[in-house]
Structure formats: structure tokens, C-alpha cells
């Protein structure tokens, strides 16, 4: 019987992390921005395969990396949220619990499976004006190994996080109107995009968690609506 070579746990983890990072670095970026009316999620994406999706009444999901993997994560999240909301109440499905659940799943795959998930995700929760302690928005970023961080104002995932973040750090202001937020988001994504021409409405996927909507806050904007927002 042949013995496998000994590889230290540190080396295994470092190799996995390196592998996942490389996979993610090839992808485009996504920004989530808090603005006056809620949260805006914007991805550079001209295909019909969405990177941003609805999880629950006030929760949205965005993923970069391998489509099949983050889409599977999104579906797992929807199943988890709907089951929890059914067993308890709709108000009991909260962003932090959701982000923790995602972090557990991703961490579990990272340690147990040979191949880690080549994805990074955002969980966004828009605040609820009815409850004193739910008013503020939450943004969580979860990495391929389950590492979770929370962010104020904006959050970026994808291949060119630093370039995109630099623009946002300089120009982000709290309580911006929707048009300003959309233009800032596009400018930030431009900084991370390889081409020199500006991103048009048709190559942007934009979704909102709109505070003012009754019930489900998530809405996906059509190309015309995105254009309208950028021009406003």
C-alpha cells in the first residue's frame, strides 16, 4: 500500500485559498451602495444570467465568481429564508442570521471539500422604518472561505475590489439620491473594468432594495429604468 505524501494543513489551506482567489480575480465586480431610498446593487453584467437576486422581503443577494456556485448558494439561501419565514414569522428572517448561514456553508465547503467555492457574495438588508431597532441597513461580505465582514455605506466584491473601492472611498456620501448613487456606482465599476469606454445601461445589472415599497422590497430595473436613473 502506498502512503500519500504528507501535506501540512497550513499548506492545504493556503493552496485552496490561492485557488479560490484566482477564480474570483477573473470575474467582474459588484457594488452595493446605501442611498436615501434604500440599497442599490449594481453589477457589470450584460448577460441574462443574473448575479443579483432576491432572498426575502428585505434581503438581497449578489455573487461573483463561478456562476453555477453562487447561483446554487442563492437558491440555498432562498430555501433557508422561506422555510424560516414559514416556521416562524416573516420579520424573523434577518440579514445577520442569513449572512451567518451563508458563512457556515461556505466555510464548511472550504474545509471539507477538495475544491473550495470560487465565489464571493454580498448579503444586503434594507432597514425597516416601523421598528426602532431595525432602522439601519446592513451590508455583509462573505468570502470563499466563509470569512464574513460587515460594511457601512458601501461594499464591493469581485476581481478588482481595490480599484472600485478607491473611487467609493473618495466620493461616497451618506443619504445620496438614487441618481447620484447610480452614477457613483457606475463610475466605481468603470475603475475596475478593463475597457476604457464608459459602461452603458445595457451592460449594467441594477437591483434595488427600495425602502418605500410595501412588502417585498426587492426590484430589478429594466435597461430603460437604469438609463432613466443614470440621467436623473
Amino acid at each position, binding site marked *: 500500500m502506498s502512503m500519500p505524501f504528507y501535506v501540512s494543513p497550513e499548506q492545504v489551506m493556503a493552496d485552496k485559498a490561492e485557488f479560490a482567489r484566482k477564480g474570483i480575480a477573473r470575474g467582474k465586480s459588484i457594488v452595493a451602495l446605501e442611498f436615501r431610498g434604500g440599497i442599490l446593487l449594481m453589477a457589470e453584467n450584460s448577460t441574462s444570467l*443574473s448575479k443579483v437576486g432576491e432572498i426575502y422581503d428585505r434581503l438581497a443577494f449578489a455573487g461573483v465568481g463561478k456562476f453555477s456556485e453562487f447561483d446554487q448558494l442563492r437558491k440555498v*439561501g432562498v430555501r433557508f429564508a*422561506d422555510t424560516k419565514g414559514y*416556521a416562524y414569522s416573516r420579520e424573523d428572517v434577518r440579514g445577520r442570521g442569513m449572512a451567518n448561514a451563508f458563512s457556515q456553508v461556505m466555510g464548511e465547503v472550504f474545509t471539507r471539500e477538495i475544491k473550495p467555492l470560487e465565489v464571493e457574495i454580498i448579503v444586503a438588508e434594507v432597514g425597516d422604518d416601523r421598528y426602532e431597532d431595525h432602522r439601519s441597513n446592513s451590508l455583509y461580505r462573505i468570502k470563499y472561505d466563509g470569512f464574513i465582514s460587515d460594511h457601512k455605506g458601501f461594499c464591493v466584491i469581485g476581481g478588482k475590489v481595490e480599484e472600485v473601492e478607491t473611487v467609493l472611498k473618495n466620493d461616497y456620501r451618506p443619504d445620496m439620491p438614487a441618481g447620484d448613487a447610480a452614477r457613483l456606482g457606475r463610475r466605481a465599476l468603470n475603475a475596475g473594468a478593463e475597457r476604457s469606454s464608459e459602461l452603458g445601461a445595457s451592460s449594467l445589472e441594477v437591483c434595488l432594495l427600495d425602502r418605500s415599497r410595501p412588502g417585498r422590497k426587492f426590484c430589478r430595473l429594466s435597461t430603460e429604468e437604469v438609463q432613466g436613473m443614470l440621467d436623473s
Partner: protein
Amino acid sequence: MPFRGSYQGSSFFELLQIEKRHLLPDLAAWGRSAVEAVPHGTTVLAMRFGNGVLVAGDRLATAGHSVASRDVVKVFETDPYSVMAISGAAGPCIEMARILSIELEHYEKIEGERLELEGKANKLSQMIRANLPAAMQGLAVVPLFAGFDTRRKLGRLWKFDITGGRYEETEFDATGSGGLYARESLKHGWSRSLTREQAIKAAVAALTAAADEDRATGGVDLERGIFPIIKMCTASGHTDATEAEIAACYREILAARAAGGNL
């Protein structure tokens, strides 16, 4: 929350059946003894009008010969373009309406688009079929399902039997203990080209007729201010008949009755 659960489809009801069995009570195990003890909902009706549908239900629930609740809700918006009305054992009925509305939202989130109206009706029929063992014990769920078909641009409605049999109606239908009387009334009050106001009037008349003949149906309760729920569903989504509209229709009926009319 596992990354690859044992269920990978887009149905919430199947997800519960396969992965969360404990959240779906086994009603059949209760046996016949439960039937008298649980509240039953009574009369609900649905009709086509103009380019939409109207669904209405009284508010009474009975347990045996007693009133269980005077203001129970039997008409539910299951998504922006569909309505479900229930008659039968109130507990399982209300739960089924709740699961159906989660089901439709769940499908939309997983798949990225809404089910067709016919797909929604079909899903409901599968859920009723799953309840068959309990239905055989007397805990039947016999709903009406109606909505606006966004592809065909018209209102459609279905009735069901306890085996999940699904029958599309082109005019109107009513079920529950007072359903027979409501149908009789609608036979006179309904016509192909009703306006919204006329449809509301026909619905109030039908529920009043049912409440008159069937002791388990509530009708309009002016003293307590309890009104039937009347929902319309058209291309622009849902609207409710206001209490004032319903009260006005009902007062007309009362006035005609007081004047010696045969209403």
C-alpha cells in the same frame, strides 16, 4: 443549511415534504374525532366579470353547531395576480393558502419568473391531493382559485374536489355549506358583461341568499360592522370592495325585502 440539500427543485411545498416533514402536520392521524372540534369555513364564491375575476367569502366559521369565529378571513391574495378562497376545515385551509402564497413567491425567486396562472392552479391541485388522507377523515380542503391570466389577458377561475380534481369554470361558482344557495342566486344575478359595481352587487346578493338559507353562513353583519371580503383581480392587480360599497348593496337588499320583495 447544507450546500447541496436533498431537494433541488423550485417548489416550496415539495421542499417541505422532502426536507422539512416535521413542519407539515399529518392531519390524517387525528381521525374522525377532530372533525366536529375544528372550525369550518362556509360559503365562498368566484365569478368572472369584465376582464377580471371577483372572489368573495363570508366571515363565519363554525365548529359543530357553535360559532367558532365571526370574522375569519377566507379569501387570500396568493400573489399579485391570483386569489384563493377556502371552504372546509379552517385550519388546514388557511395553512394551504399560506403555503400556496409562499410557494408562488418561492418559485418566482428560484426561477426568476412567475408561474402561469394555470401552473398556479395545477400546483394547488397537487397540494389538495396530498391532503386526501385527511380529507377522507372529514378534514377536507375545497378551495376556489381565481386570477388574472397575464398572457391571455382575462380572468379565470377553478374549483376543486377533495381528490385534487381541477375544473375550470367559465362563468361563476360557489362552494361550502351555503354554496348551493349562492350559486342559485348567481344564476340570476350574473351575466357575461358585468361591471365592477354590478359584480359586487351580485356577490353581496349571493352571500345574503346563502346566509338566509344556510345557518352556517355569515352574510353582512351591520350591527357588528363585519363585512364579507370581496376581492377583484384584473390586469392592474388586486382591489378590494370597500365596506361602504358592500353596506350600500346590502341596504338595497334590505330595503327591497322590507318593501315585500322576494329577496
